[in-house]
């Protein structure tokens, strides 16, 4: 599904160049649930952004589901993001004046799906995350866990190939975090590829594979037996 070979990325800070990724090789197969770990500044978020076509690598190749992601213009990048990827952010990033339903329906709007179909699909995914009763509420009326569930429903709405989550539990308490992880595990069980960036070991333990980054390099990559979040909820 994802083939990353020898990727380099550095940021320009004033006159200094700060290398963030220093040659990463990273492959993810379909149906995997991977956690990327590392302390802040290790480059884990940058790697996720490159995978998510939110950012571009300076060097190296990235192949997403057989498509070479290289020198994309904004238009095609937007199309790929819409078709292949679903994003979940630490700060939820819901549009605050739209209802839960409209937030979930937004990726479908950009796919040109009709309004009626959009609402139907959005409601289906809201139901999947257990929030069908909250469809008409705006984000400010929802709890943190509910907001993240809405964001997950939104990420799923366009039926992407890969779900990318950047610290999805970073703003949530432990109990709610496990609830969200339970949902993500369930989605993975249905065959969806999930990549999660986290710095919390208990969250990483709930994935099937742990990748650890340090100073822009992968220092360990191991398959583990995931802890089922259901046990803690």
């Amino acid at each position, binding site marked *: 599904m994802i083939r990353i070979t020898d990727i380099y990325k550095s940021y320009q800070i004033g006159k200094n160049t700060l290398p963030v990724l220093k040659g990463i090789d990273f492959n993810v197969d379909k149906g995997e649930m991977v956690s990327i770990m590392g302390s802040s500044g290790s480059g884990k978020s940058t790697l996720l*952004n490159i995978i*998510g076509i*939110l*950012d571009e690598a300076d060097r190296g190749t990235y192949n997403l589901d057989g498509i070479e992601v290289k020198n994309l213009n*904004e*238009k095609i990048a*937007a*199309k790929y*993001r*819409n*078709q292949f990827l679903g*994003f979940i*952010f630490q*700060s939820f*990033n*819901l*549009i605050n*004046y*739209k209802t839960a339903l*409209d937030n979930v329906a*937004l*990726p479908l*709007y*950009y*796919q040109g799906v009709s*309004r009626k179909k959009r609402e139907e699909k959005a409601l289906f995914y809201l139901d999947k995350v257990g929030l069908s009763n909250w469809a008409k509420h705006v984000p400010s009326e929802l709890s943190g866990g509910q907001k993240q569930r809405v964001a997950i429903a*939104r990420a799923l709405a*366009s039926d992407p190939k890969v779900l990318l989550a950047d610290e999805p539990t970073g703003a949530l308490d432990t109990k709610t975090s496990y609830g969200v992880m339970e949902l993500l595990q369930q989605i993975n069980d249905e065959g969806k590829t999930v990549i999660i960036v986290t710095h919390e070991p208990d969250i990483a333990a709930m994935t099937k594979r742990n990748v650890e980054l340090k100073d822009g390099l992968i220092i360990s990559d191991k398959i583990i037996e995931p802890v089922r979040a259901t046990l803690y909820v």
Partner: protein
Amino acid sequence: MFNIDRWQEIFEAISKNKLRTFLTGISVGSGIFILIILLGVANGFKNGTKEQFARDAATLIEFWSNKTSKEYKGLNSGRRIKMTEEDYNLIKQTYKEDIEYESVDFWKNGLATSYQSKSGNYQVIGAMPDKQFLESAELLSGRFVNQKDVDKTLKVAVIGIEVAKELFTNYKTAVGKYITTGNVNYKVIGVFLDPNERENTRLYVPYSTLTQLYASVNWGSGFVFTLEPEENYDIALAKSEAFANQVKSKLQQIHKVHPDDVTAIRHFNAVEGSKEIYQLILGMKLFFWAVGILTLIAGVVGVGNIMLIIVKERTKEIGIRKALGAQPKTIIAMILHEAIFITSISGVIGLLFGFTVLEFIGGQIKTEFILNPKVDFSIAISTVILLVIAGVVAGYFPAKYAAKIKPIIALRDE
């Protein structure tokens, strides 16, 4: 272009962001409102100044005749020249293209005018309908002599404010009453106020009526013209001088007057002394445009500023939309579409509000220097359109910038 889904998106964004919509609307609306008021006042100032400095029409050219002072073609000097309506018609025909207003006058002095027990001695002038504009006379009530009165030689009179005050205690009651002038009854059809105070003791009656009563031939005591207005003083002066000289030669030729005879046919050209008025009006015009353009610039800057703030405020939302697959042009279209919508609606509201205020205040203002502060509706509409277009142009750059922001940077913007 018309996309119901996009409209729904925009209406949602507008209605869910009431404060933002309101503030944008207020600033655009008040901009247009101030523009309309300023243009109106500038216009009123121009009108007022014109009125203040114009006793008669500023471009008035008058011809009259007297005795000859030179022998010519065997004719004696001292011969009295009398111009006629035929001469007037000939000039009128020849210079049809150049003439703005025209009148042939027949003057009759020494007639007593009375109403009931009150009477007075006023100058009676037989004139054509344009006389009102040639004299810059303002009608206080009723109407002026019109073409129908002239054609039918009706016995009607328009009386000066001083005449009206002396004969009728309350001048407002004069219209419709019958006055007697030299044993002939005239119906009063209007009361006028001439900026030149001495001329408020006059009576204007149809030219045809007065000549029929007091002249064996249709004599013309004076021919009065204004030429089509010219912006430039030098051109106006040159044209008026050429016109005056040509008409004078023609009249000398008709009446067999020596070309160098200065007393027989005489003329007065108001353009010669009206350089200041021309300069003042030009100045007013420049002022008017400067005010308009500066206000427009302020409006454009204001709209651009608002657009910049809106884009800044929506950076995160734009980032989210981009991460979800919105293409740059969709983002630009969304921002501009919303901007055009709000700008147009609030622009029109500001416009209507401004017009209402001008209409209301315009009638109340009693200053000598501001008169009739009105704005041409088409100019006002074009300024709104211009402002909307300017808003789009000013909004385009921030929108384009926003659409170019990498979603990752936009999302980091907390």
